[in-house]
Structures are given as C-alpha cells and as structure tokens.
C-alpha cells in the first residue's frame, strides 16, 4: 500500500454541445450523450489504452431510465470500452461531475488507481428537475428546511433577500456579460475546440450533428432582461435571463496520477491542489461556494489573492455575485469565467463540473502567468464544492 499522497492531474476534458431541454437532443438518449463524450475523450487521447482505464465515475442527478442502470458502468459498456473496465455512478446533484472528479482524484492520490474517467450527464428534457422526488415529510413537519429550500429559483431569491445590495440590475448585468463573453469566445473559436460533435435525431427532421451549444443568446440586452418575468415570486429578481436554463448534455474528463501521465506522455492540463465541500442552509444553497472555497484555500495554504483564474458555475447570477462579493472581487473581474458560463451555455446539472474544468484548463494554457485557479459550484440542498488547481504551464512571474 502506498503511504504517500500522489499528485493528480487533469489530462483532458471534453463535452457534448449542450442542448436546450426538449430541443436538439429530444430524440437522443442521455446514455448515448454520455457515450459520445467518453468516446470523444478517448479519440483525443490515443496514447491511452482503453483497457488501462482503472475506473469510470459518471454523475447524474436523476438516476433512472436512460440515466439509470448504474450509468457509470452502463455508459462504459455502451462506449465499447473493454468489459474489464469497471464503472460506477455518482450523485451530488449539480456537483455530480465535480464529485466524480474528486472521488477519482482521491483514489488516484492514495494509489488505488492510476488513470480514470470522471464525467456527468443530465438530460433535463428526459428527466425534469424534481422527477420522482419524494421529500420526507419531516423536512417540513419538523421545519428542517423551509419550502423554498426545495425550489432552486426560490433559493436564489433568498440570496437576494440576504444580500439586498446584490440587486436585480447587478444580476442582469452579470448575466448579460456572461452572454457577451460566450458570444466572443465562440467568435474566437475557444468553445468549439472542446466540443465533441454529437449525432442527434429528430424523428420529424432527421439526423443532425450537434456541433455548438444551443442555449446561448448573443443578442441579449439589458432592456430585454429587465422585462422578463420573475417566476419564483411576484416582484422577484430571479428570471430566466439571469439564471442557467434547463439543458441536456454530457461531459467527460481524463484524470491520472502525474507519474502515469508522464509515463504515457499524456498532456497535463491542470494539477489538482486540493478540494473541499461544505454545507450551508439549504434555503440559500447558492452561498455554498463561499464556505467550500474558504475551506479549500485553508487546506491548500493559499489565499484568495493567490487565485488567478475562476470558473464559477452560474446556476444563478446572484449566486455568483454572492461569491464574488464575499471575496471582494468585482462583478466583471476578467479572471472570472472568461468564456462566459452556464447562464449562456446552459447547465445540464450533474455534467457541469467538468465543463468548468475544461474552461479552466484553456485559461491555464493561455495565461502562463497564472499559477492557481479554482472551479466551484453551488449545490442544491445547501452545499458548495471547490477544487483548487495548479497551472502546469505556469512560468513564474506574476500570479
């Protein structure tokens, strides 16, 4: 048994284009999306012998139907990996793929495995949020949580309540910026490079190949955002425009021990420093990334000032603002989500964690002066998760 912690690296990460729920992937199964991401990942990494993959951890927030049957094992078989490659399923709601990554990383670090796939999939068209959910009546009877805790939009409204200075206008401005950054990233070809073209059939229209995200709205304006309904409360602040949408998509990341990656001559896109998850009141679940990031920084012996790149999942604009606000970072700080975020490209729940990682890896490539970056996201029922990564391309100089 190994007695020392081993360095864990991100070799590569890819995703399918994200679709709007019930739209371009309406005729495509969730497991087929997952298969496509896994096969695309392996295609890009021909030096990896599929038989050498030690494990496959796949997340889904709803694990029934085409996301059931132990999607981790099922997707591995369907992807044509050797039957000797095992697989399992992970669930931490929105942080599914993030947790698949940290779970795999833990196993690599302690020497149990050398190389593995972590990913996630959510077909929200096939599995609407809350599908088959059966909350224990004790939650409300014993006032363990308030009703708002179970509706994500309502938790976002609660964040506005808690931080009144995080106004709807700031949320809308943040959302607009996300759209603008994503539009620019598409123009610059910075998003397409990690998308795996994915066949999608519509029985009425025939087969297509999805090559870009379906959700972005590059024509968004402040005026347009201001006029949107607030579906979670009358006179609320949370709208479809300053929230992520309902989406379908899958992501997959290849993780390895640094030694293994070097032995095989694989790319090293990021080196994991540490990670942390933390709980908060479920009614303000969007606040989760604050304590999880504090915890992770403490473990890493770093300060927020040491972090040069942020990939923060944009479940809701206000939730990102609460995070930035806490750490004293400007709403439009260029270190944060330089390619835009989930508000523009979408948030197929359990798959999003790896999307943050692949974006961060691209930032690391571009900004060799940046040494550390984080990927963080809020999680329903009151949690946050944060992974701190080190830039393998770091050349010294300013952080």
């Amino acid at each position: 048994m190994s007695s020392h912690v081993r360095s864990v690296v991100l070799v590569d990460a890819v995703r399918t284009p994200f679709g709007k729920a019930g739209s371009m992937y309406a005729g495509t199964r969730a497991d087929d999306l997952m298969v496509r991401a896994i096969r695309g990942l392996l295609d890009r990494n021909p030096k990896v012998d599929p038989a050498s993959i030690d494990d496959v951890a796949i997340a889904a927030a709803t694990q029934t139907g085409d996301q059931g049957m132990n999607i981790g094992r099922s997707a591995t078989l369907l992807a044509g990996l050797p039957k000797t490659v095992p697989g399992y399923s992970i669930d931490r709601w929105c942080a599914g793929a993030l947790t698949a990554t940290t779970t795999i990383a833990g196993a690599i670090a302690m020497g149990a495995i050398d190389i593995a796939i972590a990913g996630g999939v959510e077909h929200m068209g096939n599995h609407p949020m809350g599908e088959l959910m059966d909350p224990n009546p004790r939650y409300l009877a014993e006032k363990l949580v308030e009703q708002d805790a179970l509706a994500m939009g309502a938790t976002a409204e609660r964040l506005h309540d808690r931080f009144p200075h995080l106004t709807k206008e700031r949320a809308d401005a943040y959302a607009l910026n996300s759209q603008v950054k994503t539009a620019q990233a598409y123009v610059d070809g910075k998003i397409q490079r990690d998308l795996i073209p994915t066949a999608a059939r519509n029985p009425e229209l025939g087969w297509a190949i999805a090559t870009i995200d379906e959700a972005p709205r590059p024509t968004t304006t402040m005026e347009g955002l201001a006029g949107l309904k607030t579906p979670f409360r009358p006179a609320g602040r949370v709208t479809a425009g300053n929230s992520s949408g309902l989406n379908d998509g899958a992501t997959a990341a290849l993780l390895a021990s640094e030694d293994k990656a070097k032995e095989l001559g694989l790319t090293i896109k990021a080196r994991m420093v540490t990670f942390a998850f933390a709980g908060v009141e479920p009614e303000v679940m969007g606040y989760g990334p604050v304590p999880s990031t504090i915890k992770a920084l403490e473990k890493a012996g770093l300060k927020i000032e040491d972090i040069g790149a942020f990939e923060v999942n944009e479940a809701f604009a206000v939730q990102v603002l609460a995070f930035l606000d806490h750490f004293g970072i400007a709403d439009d700080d260029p270190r944060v989500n330089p390619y835009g975020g989930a508000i523009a490209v979408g948030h197929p729940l359990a798959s999003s964690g790896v999307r943050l990682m692949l974006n961060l890896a691209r930032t690391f490539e571009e900004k060799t002066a940046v040494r550390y970056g984080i990927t963080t996201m809020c999680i329903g029922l009151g949690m946050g998760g944060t992974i701190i990564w080190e830039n393998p391309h770091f050349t010294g100089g300013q952080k």
Partner: protein
Amino acid sequence: MTTSTQLPEGAPEEIVTNALVRDVDLSPFGYKGTLALITLDNGFDHTRPNTFGPRSLAALDAAITDAASRKPAAIAITGKPFIFAAGADLSALSFLSKREQSLAIGKLGHDTFRRLDEIGIPTFAFINGLALGGGLEVGLHCNYRTLSATALTGLPEVFLGLVPGWGGATIVPKLVGPERAVQIIIGNALNNNTMMKAKDALNLGIVDAVFVPADFLERSVAFAASVLSGATKIERKDYSSDPAWDSALAAGRAAALKKYGGAEIASPLKALALIADARTNTRGQGFDAEDIALADLTMADPLRASLYAFNLIQKKRKKVEGAPKPALGRKVARVGVVGAGLMASQLALLLLRNLKCPVVMTDIDQERADKGVAWVKNELTKLVEKKRMSAEAAGRLALLISGSSDQQVFAGCDFIIEAIFEELSLKQELFKKLEKIVGPECVLATNTSSLSVERMSEGLEHPERVVGFHFFNPVAVMPLLEVARTSHTDDATTATAVNIGKELKKTMIICKDAPGFVVNRLLTRFMGEITDAVDEGTDPATADNAMRSIGFPMSPFELLGLVGPGVALHVAETLNANLGPRYRISPTMQAMVKEGVKTFYIKNDDGSFGPNPVALALVHKGSTPSTAEEVRIRALTALAQEARMMLDEGVVSSPAEIDLCMLMGAGWPMHLGGILPYLDREGISESVCGQRFHAPGIASLPQ
C-alpha cells in the same frame, strides 16, 4: 410523377419513406463547408423497415433536389435507427398489371438513384443499418459508402426471382469486379439468401469503411470530411480487362443450374447477362437493360408465384394457421426421446439446443442409448469447434442429455417423442407402456411419416395427449414441422406441440391425421408416377429427367437416393394400404430394396455422377414406355389430383398450406409458388380438377 408510376390498382397503400434533409457543419471535422444529410425514415420503428415505392422515390428525388440547392460540399444519405432501407416496396409489385407500369417503376428508381452519381457533388451513403436490395442500391449509386459494423447488407433479388434492377446488377460488377459481383448477386442470393456481414461487405469492396455503431454517424461524417479534404483517398479499379469475367460468369451459371436441378431459371440467368454487359457498357446502358429485365420478370408468372411464396413463408413463420392459443400450452421442462438411432439422436439434439431442458433418450439396450447420447455430445463438441457455440453453453447442454435402456427415466417428462421403427403395433405398445410411467398431461408425440396417429392413440387412457410431430430430414436444417391432430387430440396438447415447434424455430402447419400428412403424401404420389413409368418400360433417365426444366432442386431419383429406397418403399406400402391402389408398389423398388441397392446414381472416379448399372439391371421392364412429356404430365396430374383430394378431405384447410409444406418441407422452389401456382399456370389444375387452386392474381399475373 406520371400516372404510370402511381400504385397499381388494388395495391395496399404505400408506406412512404420520407427523405429529410438537414445541414451538417463540417468545420468541426476539419473541412470548411456543409454536408446535406438526407435521412430516410418511414416513421415506424425498426420492425417496419424503410422501403421504396413510387411516393418514397418521389420523396427522395425531392430531397436530392433540396440537398443540392443548399450548395453543400457533399450530400449524404443515412437511415433511421437500425435500418438503412430494405429495398423496393414489394407489396405493390404483385399488383402490376401492365408492362409499362413495371418499366416505369424500374425507370423511376434509376432516374432517382442515378442523380446521386450524376449530380456533380460528392455523395456518400452512411449505411447505418440493414440495407437490402434497392436499399443497398441507393448506396451503390453514391460515390462513397460507410457501413455500421453490425449492419447486414445484401442483394436478395435473385433469391426472390428478380434481378438487382435499380442499378445493382450494373454497378456492383463495375465496382468490385466479376467474381465478387457473381458471388454477391448470384451466390449469396441462391445460398438461402445469405446476407453480408460488415466485414464481408468491406472485404468485397461494397463499402469503403466500417465504423462501430456507437458513433457511426459522427465517424461517417468525419470520413466524408477526410475524403473531401483529400486526406483519405479511395481508389476505384477498372475491371473491364479483368481476366476473370468468363470464369466468373460460367461459375455463376453453374451455380444457378445446380440450384434448380439443371433448369434454366430466368432471374439468375438475366442477372448474369446484366453482369456480363457491365464489363463494357456505360452505366446508363446497364440501367436501361435492367429496366427491361425487371419488366420481363415482373410480367411473368414465376415472379408472381415467387412473391406469393415469399410472403407466405414470412407470414406463416410467425403465425401457425389453426393453432390454439399459445397460453393453452403446458410448460415443458423435461423431454423424452424414444429411440437412440440417428433420427432420434437428431431430434434429441434439436430439442436440447432449443429447449435447454433435460432430455432423456432410451433404446432397447444401454449400449445403443449410450451411442445416441455420445452422438449428441459429439455434435455439441463440433459446434464448439466451429465456434457456433461457446464451450460453456455446450457444457451446460451436455449435462442435460442422458440415455437409458429403462423407460422409467421418462417419469416426470412433459413431452415425449418417439422415433422407433415404423411399425404401428410397436408404437401402440410403446404408448401404452409410456402411459403407465408418465403423468396424465405428458404429451406423447410421434415422428411417424405415414402411420396413423389416431390408431396409435387407440386404447390409451388419455388419447387426447397424442399428436403427430413430423420432421423432415435433416431435422436441424429442414424448416417444416407437420403437426397432426387426431380426432381426440385436445387443444392443450396441440398448443404445447406448437409452442415447442416455435422454440425449435420451425415453420408449422397443423393438419388432420391422414396417411403421409402433406409432404410425404404428395412426394410419394409424385415419385410413384416416375417409378410406374420406369416399371412400364420408360427409360429411367428419360423418366427421371422429365421434369428438369421445372426447376426442382433434385430429380426424383436423386431424391430417392437421399431418402433411401427402403424408406420410400415402406411409405409407399403404408400409403397403398391406407389410401388405395393409386399408391402403387413398384417391383423395381422392391428389387432394389431386396438387393440392397441404394441409388440409381453412383459417383464416378472424376466426382461426377453416372447411372448405376446395378440399379438399371434391376429395373422391371414393361412394354409401354412413355415420353418425357407424358411422364411430366402424369406426375403433375397426380400432384393436382392428390392436392385436391387433400383439400376435399380437410387434411389442411387451404391451398396455401400445401404450398407452404412443399416450399419448406420438400425444398421446392419459390418460382413454383410451392407447387399449386405452377399447376394452375400449366393448366393442369383445371384439366384435372376442373378448377384452379388459386384465383388468378394471387400467385400469378392478374388476368
């Protein structure tokens, strides 16, 4: 669309295969431009494959126009999940009444498909699933083809009595050369319609690349981009000066003659002629010749009979006419086989392989029983060696087979089939004995070929459990099973028997218990006319060759050699005793059995077959020889008479069941429709019985 390409009157409404066009951006695949992707989809799931009738062709034509108007870098065609396209809509073919209609449908297919080659934009077929006949031909017109690793492809036209007449007969030889074209178009089609696996299709040059199904479409698009960019180059060879043309065509002709017992059957010969033309003609000339060949075949009775036969086989494979509800059948968890000879052992193996339950065999002594068990186990070993069964599966089955000389091992059986010597009293005695061993619901089945099942059940406590279960040799290969009900057989017994037959993957007919059931009764009557003619003084070769032109797979005496004169004589004697003197006992046959002479033909030193002088010496020589034509007429007359009697007696309830029996039990060819459509079109039915078996148009051209 012209009126002549609309559906003929009476044809079922076409299920239209839509052709849907969408743009695919090729830039993520490394090529700047778009691909117009046409999806063929009839809106049903894979159990109703895409097919092409006039409206479907019009839809594809419109889609090609639409695709081209988008100014794409390439056009590609793919199918719906699991299915590319299964070919022409055959349901309408049977209703074509005018040659112009047939010519027009052929031309419409060509005019649509050939655009894929002539449009001036690179075209691709992404064959994602089953592609047969016209379905594969669509792809052949494209410039390049990819194929899913699990998809089956083939050109079954010649099997059906057609030619690959939407381009296949012309394009395939030009694409892959004469030898492989003959193999695909003639060899595979005549070998029980063998389809190509993806590996075969790739090796034969029918497709350019094979990709696994998981991301077949994405990889196919990537392939297209790679061809467009020049990164992938596909070489095409010119086969016009290939040295193998003559030998390939001769081999194809020999295969076609062999298949039909030496008869010159139109569809393979026309297909060969089209292949031969492809050596030097232009595609357009080839397509024109295909149109004419298709029209010639379509407007002739053999094709109509063939289509009737094909549909009959398809339909009856699924549904057994007159079968009780399957739920009435009893569970079968232990099976007995009485006898351990070759027939019994074959039955035991078949039951074991398909029911996967304990099978016990008995014979008069342990040694014989052991021999039967050893034979079965050896067959399992052979299957493992041929990689047709895993060692694990064979091991499992080997544990389930056992043999004994003590019939007490049948205790607990749910179904017992006997295959002992064809002697009624023996079988009666056996069933009485078995009744004391087994429970009251155990089915007692007999594989007798000509004895009365009814009489075997006489005197039993439970005669309702007795049923005829008649296989054809070799039992693993011949698809027919005759299930014979006595006047006592109850529905539970019949349903159990039919359920087992389904498990054995047999095509079944349920008939009344009557001597010889269907196939042997007709074959024996037919054969009796030939031996009669010989006994009367007809030269054996003349008699035996009298029906060569019809296209039976083997001549009467070749069949006799296979069955053995002993069995044939025994059946003839039984039918003579039970059905009357029209089943005659041939003195020649008696002499052959007595002298132990097995066949009229013997193998020469060079491997060919020639007359057996020993057999010829035994021929009873009468003084009233017949001509070949007289022999043909009397044999066909006997068939018509007997078939009509069987229908009148209610042995089976429909002429179709008789045809099914001859197709599946005797291997008689589809272009005869079994046999009755042939008797109808030769005028035999009317002259002998005063009526046809089938109304005009059912298995013949409409009148």
